[in-house]
């Protein structure tokens, strides 16, 4: 072995990556950095972050029925729900108040798993930094409500499954409500 051959070999390695960084594509040994604020990676469908609420037609009628299951299941207890009531004080099947403190939320996704009404899902939104510690991270119902269309857009395969299931359930319900229809006899 020649004196210093190892050093020369090492020097060639660094020189190669120096030259490649200017002239090669990322998959051929060039730079693979994505410069974040200007460019960004395409979000994976299964990426999950903070929860949001889904509504079907209009934000006044969310899927949420204020059952409080998610608030009970939430490990860091970051969800606060107050049930709405009509003029006579009878409870309604929707929340008057739905707050999630994102500074407490630990992005576990248990709320999504626990919800029997397909009302709460994990979002792809992650740029929620604020200049203030408490109010800017405390998301209210208005901030959390997003349309089903948005959900279909960020998580198409999950949305398709859930939409199909909901449609099936609704059809069954309609069928059961129809008194005139003769009951189908099956053997």
């Amino acid at each position, binding site marked *: 072995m020649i*004196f210093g051959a190892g*050093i020369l070999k*090492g*020097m060639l390695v660094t*020189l190669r*990556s*120096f030259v490649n*960084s200017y002239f090669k594509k990322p998959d051929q040994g060039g*730079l693979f950095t994505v*410069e974040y604020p200007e460019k960004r990676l395409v979000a994976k469908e299964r990426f999950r972050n903070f929860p949001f609420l889904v509504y079907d037609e209009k934000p006044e009628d969310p899927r949420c029925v204020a059952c409080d299951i998610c608030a009970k299941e939430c490990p860091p207890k970051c969800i606060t729900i107050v049930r709405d009531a009509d003029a006579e004080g009878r409870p309604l099947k929707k929340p008057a108040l739905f707050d999630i403190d994102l500074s407490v939320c630990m992005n576990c996704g248990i709320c999504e798993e626990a919800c029997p009404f397909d009302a709460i899902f994990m979002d792809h939104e992650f740029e929620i930094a604020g200049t203030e510690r408490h109010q800017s991270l405390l998301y209210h119902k208005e901030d959390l409500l997003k349309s089903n269309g948005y959900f279909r857009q960020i998580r198409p395969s999950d949305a398709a499954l859930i939409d199909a299931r909901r449609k099936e359930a609704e059809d069954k319900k309609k069928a059961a409500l129809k008194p005139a229809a003769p009951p189908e006899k099956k053997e």
Partner: protein
Amino acid sequence: METLFIQIKTLLVNAAALVLPPWGVTLSSMIISALAILGLGPLIMMYLTLMERKVLARMQNRIGPNRAGPWGLLQPLADGIKMLTKEDIRPSAADPLLYFLAPILIAVPALMVFAVIPFGKGMTAADLNVGVLYFVALSSTTTLVIFMASWGSRNKYSVLGGMRSVSQMISYEVTLVISVVPILMAAGSLSTQTIVESQSGRWYAATPWGLLSCMIFFICGLAECNRSPFDLPEAESEIVAGYHTEYSGMRFALFYMAEFMNVFSICALTVTLFLGGWQGPLLPSWLWFLIKTYLLIFIVFWFRGTLPRLRADHLMGLAWKFLLPLAVMNIPAAAMSHFLSEPFSTAVPLAILMVSVAVLSFFNKGYAAEKRVYHFTD
């Protein structure tokens, strides 16, 4: 283009001659040169930091600074503002005078050596007839200041760094000086300007003894300005930051500045002594000088991106057991080439040097334990 900077200076001096007496003109000529160097030093340092970060980043498959200005060109300014506005902390146990003086004094020799560097044809600020000696003498005072800083800050890591710096300097200074001797013999002068002019036919690095001398000089120069792989005095993984552990803000920036200016001056002197200085076809002389110098500086950064830090005993071994004997053998080799005629003037030095490299690498071979052979019972 060739005489651009000389013309600017002549213009300024002529303007001064209109209002000043003769002694004032001489003085203003000196002041203009001094101011040019004082401005040049920090400017070079600022952009060397950017270049180092960029080059290192590219070698490590990163992009490097690119936020401040196009291609990060304003990054040095941003760093400067950060350094200036940082809190200036002095340890309560530190020696006030030494601690205060060291960062100022370290920048002085780093700037003073620029005076003898020939940046172009007729562009030496002070063409001393002992130029190389002046350079070697001044650049070695850096060690004293480094030890001042380390002793003054009353920190065990600082003192360790200072000790390492002194021991490293003693080893490499000797080799550095001896490696220049063949060039001085061939050029017959210590003046940097004369040395460059004597290389008009052939660069010294194009001869076998010159090439070896160049390599030894460059390696020792790296060790002198504490650059990787010889950065033991400021080894951040071992002794925090070595001699400048306790320094922050602008004081630290001065140490950093001195280090980068030393890198520049070592590379500039290597170019002057071995690579033909400002000599080159077509382009203006100062541009040739800068191109060659920045290529060498690139090599310095390239070393930094590639080589790990040497162990202290390997560092000493390399200087005393390999480079020093080789530099000494280089002197008779250079003398041979001077006194012999053409075919022998290259062949004989080459033979001498190859034999000495072979002998030295044989004797420097480290101990490697014999490979054990295990016998298993069947």
